[in-house]
């Protein structure tokens, strides 16, 4: 008969039940992490079981210890009362409950230990390896013991056989002071890296020394603890410095709040990296909420994590495609969207600005109001919209196969000032070409075979026509994945512009108060030089960008471009190189 449940909480890491046996005896059974059970045990084969637990942990099994005690009726009454007062307390209920549990769970007799093999999800190792090759730093935050966690890390290839493990654990801190340990570790780590930049770390070179850091929750709280002498920030800096030079970090025995704490620490460190937290249990919720991107794995442990996350995925392995394929695509698409929007509007407005110098600064518009309104809505909107939904600069399987391509977009590479300045200057150059090209064509000369003159609306329409075609063809040159939809919107937008212009100027529209555009477009098209000028100006505008693309691809190709070239040249599968080596440790791979 179940009398009481002393529920689990992640701080004290155990739970108990009080039961009455058929014989009338009252027992308290307690199970929990070995570090929280062993201190409360007075009897039992402690050393033997402790050794057994250690061995289990090293093999990667998750261990629990179980203990019991029998309670006399008065003891039970006292316990009951204690629990009751604590449960109904109006203030500090948590604290009172914790104290009550503390009181009740003592003087236990050790029963034994259990071990559970928590299988790694399929392809977890593959995913982690891919992420590391992509230049993403992977940290493992777990509540498990150090040995279990370390074994798991070896199994999922976070630590490789040549990874030198550095420990920042309670054990070491007990021997030396925190200060000494931190300094020693940082010296070790910085000695080897020196001037090498860790960003170029290819991930599998055998000659660079690989470091892995193991830290546990107690040590972390020591580092994070605010001190009066202000040295805590130094410790944090040192800690982050060590972490920066390690290829992987394992944090074990982490309480959920500590997981969030560490995410916050990294978020606000010097380089302000973008953080992603992925977890499947309720104890991961706080770190999922803290990180920039929180991902919940919909798992057997319920939906708490998934509910609190930005994205939920069914399995851990889906993270690989999500980041390396979809993430990469979205970044390429969004950065082109942003840059292109600024570019096409610079092309749009700068000729208007230039015209002011020639119209007495009277704010006379170069283009008709219909063109002004519809430029961004109809003539140039659909192509970039569909580009940002559909573009694939390299194939999906190429991205999956070669995670290092992800490094091409690291550190917001496509939205930096330099790239933006290039696009802006391109827009300015194009605008100058449009305007002054038309200007020199029109200046004081006749361009029709009938000798009649063009007016200002024809001039503006010529500039506008060149502009619409140029910005659309610029996007066409940037598109690397031409589906039928892309063809449809790009050529369709241009066609729509032409049809609209013909209709707009083809009839005396009764609802218009002005008829200034009547026949302007058609008249412009009846002039030979206008056609020649349009072709020339479009070519001149697009030439520099094409040249830049080709030169950059030839002289300074990015990894992505090299892959594209390679895929074109080779039709045979790339040969894979196997490296065999002897393993010296007891762990198998």
């Amino acid at each position: 008969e179940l009398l009481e449940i002393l529920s689990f909480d992640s701080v004290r890491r155990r739970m108990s039940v009080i039961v009455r046996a058929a014989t009338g005896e009252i027992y308290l059974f307690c199970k929990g992490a070995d570090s929280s059970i062993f201190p409360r045990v007075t009897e039992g084969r402690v050393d033997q079981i402790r050794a057994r637990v250690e061995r289990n942990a090293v093999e990667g099994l998750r261990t629990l210890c179980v203990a019991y005690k029998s309670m006399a009726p008065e003891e039970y009454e006292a316990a009951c009362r204690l629990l009751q007062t604590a449960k109904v307390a109006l203030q500090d209920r948590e604290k009172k409950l914790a104290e009550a549990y503390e009181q009740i769970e003592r003087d236990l007799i050790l029963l034994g230990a259990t071990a559970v093999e928590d299988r790694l999800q399929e392809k977890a190792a593959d995913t982690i390896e891919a992420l590391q090759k992509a230049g993403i730093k992977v940290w493992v935050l777990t509540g498990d013991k150090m040995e279990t966690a370390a074994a798991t890390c070896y199994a999922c290839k976070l630590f490789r056989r040549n990874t030198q493990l550095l420990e920042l654990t309670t054990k070491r801190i007990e021997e030396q002071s925190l200060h000494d340990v931190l300094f020693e570790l940082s010296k070790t780590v910085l000695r080897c890296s020196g001037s090498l930049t860790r960003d170029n770390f290819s991930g599998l070179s055998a000659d660079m020394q690989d470091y892995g850091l193991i830290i546990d929750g107690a040590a972390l709280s020591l580092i994070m603890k605010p001190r009066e002498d202000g040295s805590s920030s130094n410790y944090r800096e040192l800690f982050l410095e060590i972490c920066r030079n390690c290829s992987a970090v394992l944090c074990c025995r982490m309480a959920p709040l500590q997981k969030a704490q560490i995410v916050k620490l990294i978020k606000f460190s010097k380089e302000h990296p973008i953080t992603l937290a992925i977890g499947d249990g309720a104890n991961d919720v706080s770190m999922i909420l803290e990180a920039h991107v929180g991902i919940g794995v919909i798992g057997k442990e319920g939906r708490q994590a998934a509910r609190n996350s930005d994205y939920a995925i069914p399995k851990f392995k889906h993270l690989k495609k999500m980041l390396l394929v979809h993430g990469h695509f979205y970044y390429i698409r969004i950065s082109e969207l942003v840059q292109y929007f600024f570019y096409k509007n610079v092309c749009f407005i700068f000729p208007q600005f230039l015209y002011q110098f020639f119209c007495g600064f009277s704010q006379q518009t170069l283009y008709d109001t219909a063109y002004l309104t519809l430029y961004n809505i109809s003539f140039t909107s659909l192509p970039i919209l569909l580009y940002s939904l559909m573009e694939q600069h390299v194939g999906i399987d190429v991205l999956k196969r070669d995670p290092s391509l992800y490094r091409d977009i690291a550190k917001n590479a496509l939205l930096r000032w330099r790239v933006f300045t290039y696009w802006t200057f391109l827009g300015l150059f194009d605008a100058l070409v449009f305007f002054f090209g038309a200007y020199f064509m029109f200046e004081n000369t006749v361009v029709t075979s009938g000798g009649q003159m063009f007016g200002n609306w024809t001039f503006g329409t010529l500039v506008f026509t060149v502009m619409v075609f140029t910005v659309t063809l610029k996007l066409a040159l940037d598109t690397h994945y031409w589906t039928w939809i892309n063809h449809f919107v790009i050529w369709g937008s241009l066609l729509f512009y032409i049809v609209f212009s013909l209709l707009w100027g083809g009839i005396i529209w009764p609802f218009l108060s002005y008829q200034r555009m009547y026949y302007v477009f058609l008249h412009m098209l009846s002039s030979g030089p206008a056609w020649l000028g349009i072709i020339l100006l479009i070519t001149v505008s697009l030439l520099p960008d094409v040249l830049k693309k080709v030169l950059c691809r030839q002289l300074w190709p990015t990894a992505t471009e090299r892959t594209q070239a390679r895929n074109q040249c080779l039709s045979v599968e790339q040969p894979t190189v196997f490296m065999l080596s002897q393993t010296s440790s007891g762990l198998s791979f």
Partner: protein
Amino acid sequence: PGGTTKTRRPDNTAFKQQRLPAWQPFLTAGTVLPTFFIIGLIFIPIGIGIFVTSNNIREIEGNVFMYYGLSNFYQNHRRYVKSRDDSQLNGDRSALLNPSKECEPYRRNEDKPIAPCGAIANSMFNDTLELFLVANESDPTLMLIPLKRRGIAWWTDKNVKFRNPPGTESLKERFKDTTHPVNWLKPVYELDPEDEDNNGFINEDFIVWMRTAALPTFRKLYRLIERKNDLHPTLPAGRYYLNITYNYPVHSFDGRKRMILSTVSWMGGKNPFLGIAYITIGSISFLLGVVLLVINHKYRNSSNTADITI
């Protein structure tokens, strides 16, 4: 698990899984090089053709076009450009008597609506130019060159956009209750009393003036000198006498007036810019093609060795 619950798995269609069949081009030197050379090879001859055609426009044969040109005259000023009433000019009776507010302050005068209203109409060019040929040195008689005043405006302007107010009465009757623009000497129905089809709003000089020029230095078609027959040149060599009836003041705004005689080819008047531009761009393109070829050749050897990446 959950046999009857609807699966939330996305459809496995090509569109939703981003597997649509696609052409995947990318610009390499190999694809762009031929384009540069082609552009060079096409543009240069076109440029030469245009340039030659443009420069050949000097023999005064064929139709000759006479233009008047103005400088420092901002027909493209915003307040000026909007100061017109297209409905009135299209013959709308209600707009004739009640011009649009855009025409202010040239909308009403002496309590009558102005026809045509607006600043553009008000500032119409009203100099008269006449061309005479001095027959020979000894004989001082001047031979008047016949100047054709029809066919100088856009056909669509003359026949669709600009219409006189409808009616069977005389033009003067149709324009009663209106007054002429402030700066005009004659009312609009006296612009060409000899030719009914060139009077009122559909007067071609008026239409040409109403098409606002794009830049402050512009020219407008004034008259046509038609060629007589193939044997004689339209304007034979000799001395010519230009008679100007000076009505149009330009000194106040530091403007300049001039008269231009030009022949016209399929590509319009003399315009060296286009020809030169084509030749320049064609040459640059060709040059870039050569440069890229050199770079490509140099790097092709180094990229042929296998990239050993892990």
